[in-house]
């Protein structure tokens, strides 16, 4: 039971929408597609669902080639960002619609719809029509349809994007357990790094129609293979600045320098890119080993219990994200500190080297 993409590409006219991609999605855990809007998540999902044709490559489901198969023969479900339900059918009929097309017995349909409705707490709404439901209930109806169908693969294309904050959190917490133990391959597309981390499982990072990295979510968060991957999987965007290694010291073009230890110490001398996540850049000094970075503050934001400050570091703008409320003054120079142990070092070609 797996969904396998072998050197898949997609073209529209001359434009390449999906560059050659090979992936294996396993059932039993969440597979997250993480990338910005326009990075190719929806295109890839439409390819896997059979709504668009591959330009080249093969698509296997449980080892069987489904490349040329129509969507209905693939036994899949797709939940959209918009709430897509048949407007003039009740919730019951909406959930039952794929089962009716499949020609199941009435009792079987009844049982499956009710079971799915129970899981998604839609029991009291079965007789209503979609426009009588809230956004969250409409999207739960779409999810119930996917569950009742017992699909081999379920594609969730930013299903929470149009829900308000509270509902989004609630439904996101339920999602992994909803599909646990159903044996379906679940692919979840999102543009929010935080969502990928919360859902766990596997994550494929996407940028410009290419999967830049694929692996267990926590692992690729900790070790992004390229600067591009690091940028995709960081919100606010990861801080990066040019630096030069000489001997056992790394020196930022903008000024600060520190001694290297571990793997970084054995790198060849030359130019590198140093990157560090915003929450590893703090406005206070804590450890002696921390490096001091000074620059004028450009923008400050207060979000709940965290403060963020954008400051100028040489040619680049860096962001510091720290708990608590800090008295930043826009325009004034401020000192920030980072622990070199949290730094990533990328070679000039973008590959992670230490």
């Amino acid at each position, binding site marked *: 039971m797996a969904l396998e993409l072998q050197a898949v590409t997609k073209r529209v006219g001359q434009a390449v929408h999906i560059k050659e991609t090979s992936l294996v999605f396993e059932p039993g855990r969440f597979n997250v597609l993480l990338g910005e809007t326009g990075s190719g998540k929806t295109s890839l999902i*439409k390819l896997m*669902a059979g*709504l668009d044709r591959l330009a080249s490559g093969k698509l296997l489901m449980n080892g069987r080639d489904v490349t040329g198969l*129509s*969507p*209905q*023969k693939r036994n*899949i*479900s*797709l939940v*959209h960002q*918009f709430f*897509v339900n*048949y*407007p*003039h*059918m009740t919730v019951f009929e909406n959930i039952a*619609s*794929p089962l009716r*097309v*499949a020609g199941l017995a009435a009792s079987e349909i009844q049982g499956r719809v009710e079971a799915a409705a129970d899981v998604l707490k839609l029991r009291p709404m079965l007789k209503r*029509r979609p*426009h*009588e439901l809230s956004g969250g209930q409409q999207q739960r109806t779409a999810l119930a349809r996917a569950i009742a169908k017992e699909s081999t693969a379920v594609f969730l294309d930013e299903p929470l994007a149009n829900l308000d904050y509270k509902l989004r959190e609630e439904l996101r917490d339920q999602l992994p357990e909803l599909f646990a133990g159903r044996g379906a391959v679940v692919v979840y597309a999102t543009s929010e790094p935080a969502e990928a981390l919360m859902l766990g499982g596997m994550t494929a990072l996407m940028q410009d129609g290419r999967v830049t990295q694929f692996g267990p979510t926590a692992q690729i968060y900790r070790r992004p293979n390229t600067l591009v991957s690091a940028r995709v999987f960081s919100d606010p965007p990861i801080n990066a600045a040019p630096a030069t290694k000489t001997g056992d010291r790394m020196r930022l073009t903008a000024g600060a320098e520190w001694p290297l230890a571990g793997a970084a110490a054995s790198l060849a001398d030359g130019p590198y890119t140093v990157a560090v996540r915003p929450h590893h850049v703090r406005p206070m000094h804590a450890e002696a080993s921390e490096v001091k970075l000074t620059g004028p503050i450009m923008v400050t934001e207060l979000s709940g219990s965290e403060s963020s400050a954008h400051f100028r570091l040489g040619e680049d703008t860096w962001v510091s994200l720290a708990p608590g409320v800090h008295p930043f003054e826009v325009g004034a120079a401020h000192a920030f500190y980072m622990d070199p142990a949290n730094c990533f070092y990328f070679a000039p070609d973008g590959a992670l080297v230490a």
Partner: protein
Amino acid sequence: MRKVNQKGWLFVLPVVVLVAFNALIPMMTVVNYSVQETFGDNVFFWHGLGWFEDILKSDRFQAALGRQAFFTFLILIIEVPLGVIIALSMPRKGFWVPVCLVTMALPMLIPWNVVGAMWNIFTLPDIGLLGYFLNHVLGISYDMTQNPTAAWITVITMDVWHWTSLVVLLCYAGLVSIPDAYYQAAKIDGASNWSVFRYIQLPKMKQVLTIAVLLRFMDSFNVYTEPFVLTGGGPGNSTTLLSIDLVKIALGQFDLGPAAAMSLIYFAITLFASWLFYTLMTRNDVK
């Protein structure tokens, strides 16, 4: 006691004046005529509801009403499904969209009397393109100035040619507003083309379709210019629709009383039928 500010009336006044001059006053003139008899010299006598009774009982009115109802029935039964089918088969994106839209809109841009004149010349047996072709090339006897059936076919075809576009454009607007996601969901479900139409396109088109049916009903029930220019109500009285008959009575015979009574009955029928259509078509909608 609270002092009531009466200035509000001033703001409503322009609308009241406007509506009075374009609807109420002409309408009340007709009501006035409908209950009086005159023998000229601007002298009027009270006639009560006599004209209404006469009109409703007259064979002439009933026949005209029957022809009118039959005409409208044919128009709706042909134009609405045809309009939906054409709208469904039009492209939703690409180069051909503007071409189709402009082609569809063209007939509606032609003035009504020009449409009547066009079709008149087009179907004349000896000089008209269609009339000549049917009679002298295909050998089918077709003359709408002589044969009532030919006249009816021509009147109906002309209206279909002129007004199906309205249904098409309204339905098309409803269709293109359906997000792609619905079609994708249907594809994944394996829904047939019929199911897509029945459960996605039709419900999403329902509101514009209601408007289309209402507009086509009212316009076809009140139609005057095109059939009048085309056939003048003939041959005989075979295509004399209500409005044509009304004009004959009012301006031909100058029977003001009966014509006014007939106008009011005509108006009442149109109003009632429109209300009925609208109520029936929207009764399942949840507000």
